[in-house]
């Protein structure tokens, strides 16, 4: 029977090619607009480390007190980054399974070959536990040890890109690189690793970034050699003393902090530890306000930091609006098309076809329109994703991909939506009175 309905539908669609093309175009454009914006939205709202994002937490401490509050958009949250004093205190207490304070650096690498210009690289000063915590993938070697942290060892983990540039991609573990005029021993080379959003340091990168992560060196080592931070610095008071040392003694925030807590009891324990810490500071007179801490897991943290750009959300909503209009449009056209065939329906019903048969016939027709619209939509989505970099900032546009799930979703959305749009017209068609139609013919 299905083959017969498909045949009937194709005949009917051929009979009014204008209307058919119009419906296919509407579905195609509507689906393509939604899917293109969805692909961008999916890319920016995705979980950068799905296998353990629920175990990664970002502690926040209110080191600013009332001075940091007030003004537009204040929701009582403590600052979203860490000052030096509190970051070091938390590192010292070492209450989580893994933890790392970190700050953004941007030193220069001087190639050993004479005559080559130095190159500017981006990276982070981190603790040894950063690597197991973020599951950073190593190509050669490993991260450094906790002992290296303590001894402020001159060791470095470099990116695959820098390894290509300086060592032609060979295993460079044990080799030496020149960072800001000082020698560092390479202990590890990462595989290509570019998590988006940059979940471990949202406050400095804003989430999505085209900056490379080329170099990681031990946190205390970077502090020792006065390697200044290259990310954001926010202050409520101007530091009492000058220079990088003055920044370290101030309440200015310029660091990110991440911990790994594997189960609910350890999360609770860490929470009460943070509260205890803040109370201690209150007793010591450093904070003159009650503890106001947060401990969000990674997905909640990304949400709180508004990592998904609002433009992306608005675009998706408007595109979905476009799809809805296209469906209303298709519903109207299907209604016209189906009711035009009242005579044919009358004959079929008079010859004994039940209503369900009419339903099946017309829904098959709607599905065929939807499927054709979906195919066109696929084509247009492909074009859309390729040209989205014209329209959106590079750091976001480059993340949009056309993959198998998106292909399938495009087709499914097109067919399901068109069949939904066809339900009312089909209902109307099934209610055609055979006697009326036969008589008027």
């Amino acid at each position, binding site marked *: 029977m299905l083959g017969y309905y498909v045949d009937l539908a194709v005949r009917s669609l051929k009979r009014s090619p*204008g*209307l058919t093309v*119009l419906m296919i*175009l*509407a579905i195609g*454009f*509507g689906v393509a*607009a939604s899917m293109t*914006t969805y692909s961008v939205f999916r890319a920016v709202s995705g979980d950068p480390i799905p296998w353990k994002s629920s175990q990664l937490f970002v502690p926040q401490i209110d080191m600013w007190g*009332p*001075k940091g509050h*007030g003004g537009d958009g204040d929701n009582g949250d403590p600052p979203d980054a860490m000052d030096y004093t509190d970051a070091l205190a938390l590192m010292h207490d070492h209450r989580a399974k893994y933890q790392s304070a970190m700050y953004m650096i*941007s030193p*220069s690498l*001087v190639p050993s070959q004479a005559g080559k*210009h*130095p190159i*500017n690289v981006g990276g982070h000063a981190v603790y040894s536990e950063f690597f197991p915590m973020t599951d950073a993938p190593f190509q050669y070697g490993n991260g450094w040890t906790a002992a290296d942290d303590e001894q402020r060892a001159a060791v470095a983990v470099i990116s695959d890109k820098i390894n290509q540039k300086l060592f032609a991609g060979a295993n460079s573990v044990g080799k030496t690189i020149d960072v*800001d*005029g000082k020698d560092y021993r390479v202990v590890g080379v990462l595989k290509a690793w570019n998590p988006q959003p940059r979940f471990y340091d949202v406050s400095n990168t804003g989430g999505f970034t085209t900056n490379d992560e080329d170099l990681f060196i031990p946190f205390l080592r970077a502090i020792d050699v006065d390697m*200044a931070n*290259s990310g954001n610095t926010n*202050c409520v008071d*101007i*530091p009492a*003393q*000058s*220079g*990088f040392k*003055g*920044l370290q003694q101030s309440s200015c925030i310029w660091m990110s902090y991440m911990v790994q807590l594997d189960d609910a009891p350890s999360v609770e324990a860490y929470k009460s530890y943070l509260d205890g810490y803040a109370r201690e500071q209150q007793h010591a007179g450093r904070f003159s306000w009650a503890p106001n801490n947060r401990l969000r897991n990674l997905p909640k943290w990304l949400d709180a930091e508004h990592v998904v*750009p*609002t*433009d992306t*959300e*608005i*675009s998706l909503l*408007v*595109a979905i*609006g*476009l799809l*809805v*209009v*296209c469906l*209303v*449009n298709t*519903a*109207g*056209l299907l*209604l*016209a*098309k189906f009711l*035009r065939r009242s005579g044919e329906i009358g004959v079929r019903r008079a010859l004994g076809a039940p209503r369900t048969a009419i339903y099946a016939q017309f829904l098959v027709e709607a599905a065929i329109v939807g499927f054709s619209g979906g195919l066109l939509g696929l084509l247009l989505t492909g074009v859309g994703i390729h040209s989205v970099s*014209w*329209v*959106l*900032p590079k750091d976001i546009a480059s993340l949009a991909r056309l993959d198998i799930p998106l292909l399938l979703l495009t087709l499914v959305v097109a067919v399901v939506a068109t069949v939904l749009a066809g339900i009312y017209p089909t209902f*109307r068609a099934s209610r055609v009175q055979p006697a009326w139609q036969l008589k*008027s*013919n």
Partner: protein
Amino acid sequence: MQIHPIIVALRRHKAGTLLIALQIALTLAIVCNALFIIHQRLSHLSEPSGIDEANLFVVTNLWGEQYSTDEAAAKIQQDLAALRQLPGVDNVTPADSYPLRGGGWDNFITLKPEQVSMTTDASVYTGDEHFLRTLGVKLIAGRDFHADEVQNMGLRQNFVPPVTIISKALADKLYPNGDALGKPFYSMSDKPTTIIGIVERLHRADVSTWSAPYANESLIWPIRMAQPWGVFYIVHTKPGQLDEAMREAPKALYAENRMRMISSKDGVRSFAQIRHLAFESDRGMAVLMSIICVVLLAITGAGIVGLTSFWVGQRRRQIGVRRALGATHRDILHYFLTENFLISLAGVAIGVLLTFGLNLWLVERFEMQFLPLAYVLGGMVILLLLGQGAVFAPALRASRVPPVEATRPA
């Protein structure tokens, strides 16, 4: 033209009528809000910066070695001399930020030292005695910096210079009576800084939405930044020599001292490029919304053509009867135009509610602004015209139905 018979006829096409009206309503809601977004974004693109953008470019110079403040200050002076010797170069100033850079240094400003909440927020520029002239900023009151007022400042050194030049927007915010010149203010410090000059306009360094309430509020301190990481050189060229100077500048700097990094990709940027980059996402959003508007209007228009064509086909016999009873071509044409006008009117009436609903939701969720009434009126006119335009061809075909159709079976 009588409206009553049209309404009676429409009652027999309830579903089709409702679907067209609904489509028009939704289209109006989306198009109005999208047009508003487009307008807002486009008005950003042409925001004046107050500087002579056509003849300016910026060199991002990163040091290849670690320098102390004094060393960096000396290197900067050598670089400035090298740049000034280029034939196309008019003036150069070292800076740690520039307008439209997209982020940078901003300070809370208060009128009293003990004030807890800020009076306003200002974008902070540091500049020497060449800053105003190089950027081509127009001084409208007071004076420029003297060379002996300019101090060197190293990384995170903190002092508040005793004098400052501010933008008119900031002056008006602090002293609304227009008497800001010579007055002090406080900037995250208990030491005052005195306003010695006011410039007509100087765009902030950032272009984010959070700073919209503080638009064009900027201050310049007489400071020569000597950071260990590097410096921006803002270069003003003689007319027509921008491209040439942009090519020569990095060569001259490398010839002066090799231990530096000027990215071949974005180390030298003209202000045209800086502006392009600063408003990239705004332009993109405007383009995206425009595409969606055009597709939406096209589909709605085509939908009206399709459905009206069907109705015309369905009513050929009735049209024939009317023609046989003496109705003219024009009467039939008007019938369909009026019918569409009534449907469209109902559509835009519902649409206005949807438009404000959608806007309200966008305001709530995304902190957008309220939609001005002009957009809604404009959107209504667009959709009514679209409807009339779309229905014209099928209506014309209907008017050509000959009276003899009345005698044929339906």
